[in-house]
């Protein structure tokens, strides 16, 4: 059986599935139950400075984008950091860590951008025996209005500065949690690295308004008739997060920096994908909030099943395996030619591929009076739209054309080998092919 144990910054956990800093990790009761359910580690709900804790709204915090059958696709929240007393949290963290020495315990922190504030809290956190800290530079609502969270994460100089303080006043690993509410994720990641961060984690939530109530004209969730943007997470944000992770994994300035992948991890497969993109582990919030802690059992069994099937004995075996294959558009092979192919045995004749291709794309699907749908190779540009709208898995597939055959659309012979845009004759800036 595959070994799922993970060593992230020297912090060991029995599997790469950690709970992200959020309500699931808000208190001792939750975290104990999470560990009993099998989670490898937790990032404790973000702590604030000593003194009266923040207060949350007393109305709805969540809004959701549902898919068919009310499946939660995207979750929006306007919750703040912990609204419980600092000492209570610290005591609980100390107790839980002592009882679960084999699980990763990371403490998320967000205090004002003043050295003293960090100097005050870090020794207290150190005393809990937790394995490391995560700096919440990502919360996009409420806290950012107070100059914390995303407000720090959007200013690289602040990131660097605070990270440096943390490395100075805290002895264990420091993870910087990034906000996606910026234009180029590499910049804050570089700043974190300059500040001495041991790792970055991403993403925190994305600015969002999930819906407007058309009777009250208030955004949802509505607090007494008014709404505010919240932070978006869940399956819907995974593609955004995965792309950001890939940017950090690929950029020379940040390549090799340990990454904890966050955003829409819902099944073992999502986790495996993040790991192939260079993550050392993943963090989960929405999936646990939707299905409960038990969801981790499927993640564990699925990942281990897949690793066995592929012959991977440890997480390291495939970590980063997709990074070399993630490139810029300009380097994609333009000699590669494929055509859609419909498996008539699987086709249920719904016509969705036809509607998509005929109305909006390349008129490359023919429909017979008997509702037989077939691809017209002379028109098909292999865009993949039909594949994605077909309700039957693998009914339409993309079949690569062999080198030497003639593409009926262009009349050109499919070339062997690799040629990209940089050398293409149509490219005004093309560099001559040798």
């Amino acid at each position, binding site marked *: 059986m595959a070994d799922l144990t993970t060593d992230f910054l020297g912090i060991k956990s029995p599997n790469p599935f950690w709970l992200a800093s959020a309500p699931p990790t808000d208190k001792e009761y939750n975290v104990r139950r999470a560990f009993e359910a099998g989670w490898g580690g937790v990032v404790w709900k973000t702590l604030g400075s000593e003194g009266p804790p923040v207060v949350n709204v007393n109305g709805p915090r969540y809004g959701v984008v549902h898919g068919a059958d009310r499946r939660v696709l995207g979750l929006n929240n306007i919750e703040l950091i912990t609204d419980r007393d600092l000492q209570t949290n610290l005591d609980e963290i100390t107790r839980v860590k002592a009882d679960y020495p084999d699980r990763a315990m990371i403490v998320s922190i967000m205090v004002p951008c003043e050295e003293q504030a960090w100097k005050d809290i870090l020794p207290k956190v150190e005393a809990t025996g937790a394995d490391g800290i995560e700096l919440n530079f990502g919360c996009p609502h409420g806290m950012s209005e107070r100059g914390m969270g995303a407000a720090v994460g959007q200013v690289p100089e602040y990131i660097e500065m605070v990270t440096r303080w943390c490395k100075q006043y805290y002895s264990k690993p420091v993870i910087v949690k990034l906000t996606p509410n910026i234009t180029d994720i590499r910049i804050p990641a570089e700043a974190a690295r300059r500040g001495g961060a041991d790792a970055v984690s991403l993403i925190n939530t994305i600015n969002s308004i999930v819906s407007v109530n058309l009777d009250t004209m208030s955004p949802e969730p509505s607090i007494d008739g008014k709404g505010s943007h919240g932070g978006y997470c869940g399956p819907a944000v995974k593609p955004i997060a995965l792309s950001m992770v890939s940017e950090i994994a690929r950029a020379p300035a940040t390549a090799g920096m340990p990454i904890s992948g966050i955003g829409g991890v819902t*099944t073992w497969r999502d986790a495996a994908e993040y790991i192939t993109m260079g993550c050392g582990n993943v963090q989960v919030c929405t999936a646990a909030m939707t299905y409960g802690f038990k969801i981790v059992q499927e993640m564990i*069994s699925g990942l281990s*099943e897949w690793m066995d099937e592929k012959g991977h004995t440890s997480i390291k075996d495939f970590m980063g395996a997709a990074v070399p294959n993630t490139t810029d558009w300009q380097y994609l092979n333009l000699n590669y030619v494929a055509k859609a192919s419909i498996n008539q045995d699987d086709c249920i004749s719904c016509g969705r591929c036809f509607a998509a291709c005929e109305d909006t794309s390349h008129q490359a699907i023919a429909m017979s009076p008997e509702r037989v749908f077939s691809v017209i190779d002379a028109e098909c540009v292999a865009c993949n739209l039909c594949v994605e709208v077909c309700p039957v898995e693998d009914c339409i597939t993309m079949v690569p054309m062999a080198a030497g055959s003639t593409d009926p659309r262009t009349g050109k012979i499919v070339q062997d080998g690799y040629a990209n845009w940089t050398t293409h004759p149509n490219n005004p800036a093309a560099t001559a092919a040798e």
Partner: protein
Amino acid sequence: MVDKVFEAGVVAGRLAPEAYAELFSDLHPPLGAHEALVAADRCYFCHDAPCITACPTDIDIPLFIRQIATGTPDAAAKTILSQNIMGGMCARVCPTEQLCEQACVREEAEGKPVLIGQLQRYATDHLQEQGVHPFVRAEPTGKRVAVVGAGPAGLSAAHRLAMLGHDVKVYDAQPKAGGLNEYGIAAYKTPDGFAQGEVDWLLKIGGITVETGRALGPDLSLEGLRAEFDAVFLGMGLGGVNDLGVEGADKDGVLDAVDFIADLRQAGDMGSVPVGRDVVVIGGGMTAVDAAVQSKLLGALNVTLVYRRGRERMNASVFEQDLAASKGVRIVTHAVPKAVIGNGAVREIEFEYVGDDMAPTGQTLRLTADQVFRAIGQTLEGEGLPDLAGGRIAVDAQGRTSLDRVWAGGDCATGGDDLTVTAVAEGRDAAMHIHAALSANA
């Protein structure tokens, strides 16, 4: 139409030879990969799911369905089989409409439960078709356990004991292992030799020897087994059949439904199984329905199932009753047999109608019959057994009998419904208690 359809008497080959394969094919054809994904997608992954509670073997249904949904059917199979080593057979024969699927919250919401049984089959078939046996034995304990009966209870106990490191010897009276999986379950629920295939797959765990053709009796005494082994598990089912107790019940053509079904299950060619033109089945349980439906499938022209009480009291589920009706079986209720009429062989059978309280009404019914099947319950057979209660071996909550180091489970023991899945559960649980006892005095 073949001439033999209308021929009176008990004859084989009533239908055209090619008709049988279709008639006896899978009752529920297996789900394809796409169907399985669509069906799995409907599960809500309920907390403390009611379907789990309703499954006698406590399979973690939401987990295995999610494992299917996330593309790992083999992991799903392991989830199922770790609780129920006959998950493959149970997926085919469980009355899910009374068990897991009845409890499914989508039954409550939409009257359409998640297809738990069929998804269970999808996963277990996926693994078993690769010939993979996912369990390995623990270190040998040096302990030896005898199991009497290679039915679901006995094999489930044997597998669990072997997995825990004990050496197991299984004795069965019949020439083939499997119990009613092999000799009783309707042919259309387990076609294509699935029962033997499952037994072979189950035995891959190792550490289990099966001796068929060995009945507990004069040459294999319980005393002897207790002397030779560290523990004994009795899972011999119910071998005897209740009598009709009416005049003429010994006439030719009056048979035990279980014998008819056993012959049918062992027949290589369904066309070789003789069946009456006018068949009457007496009883109201699964055996009665199976005998009636299979008579009909064999080509009997008129099949009547006669039950002494109302439909709601029938042990056969509503699904089974509807299945019988859909195959053209006529169901008569509130009638008890009075006399079997005929000269040597049965020709007619007379019933008297009774009230809900079973009080005679004086009104009678005569049915033409060239074959009558008794399906009014089975009984435990055997001597020198532990103490009985209500005709079955009395067991406590741990499956212990009145005899030291002797456990029992399945149909032969008290408690539980007479279902494959409960037999598997009882065998498994008794094995755990045997293991605890053997480990305690190790």
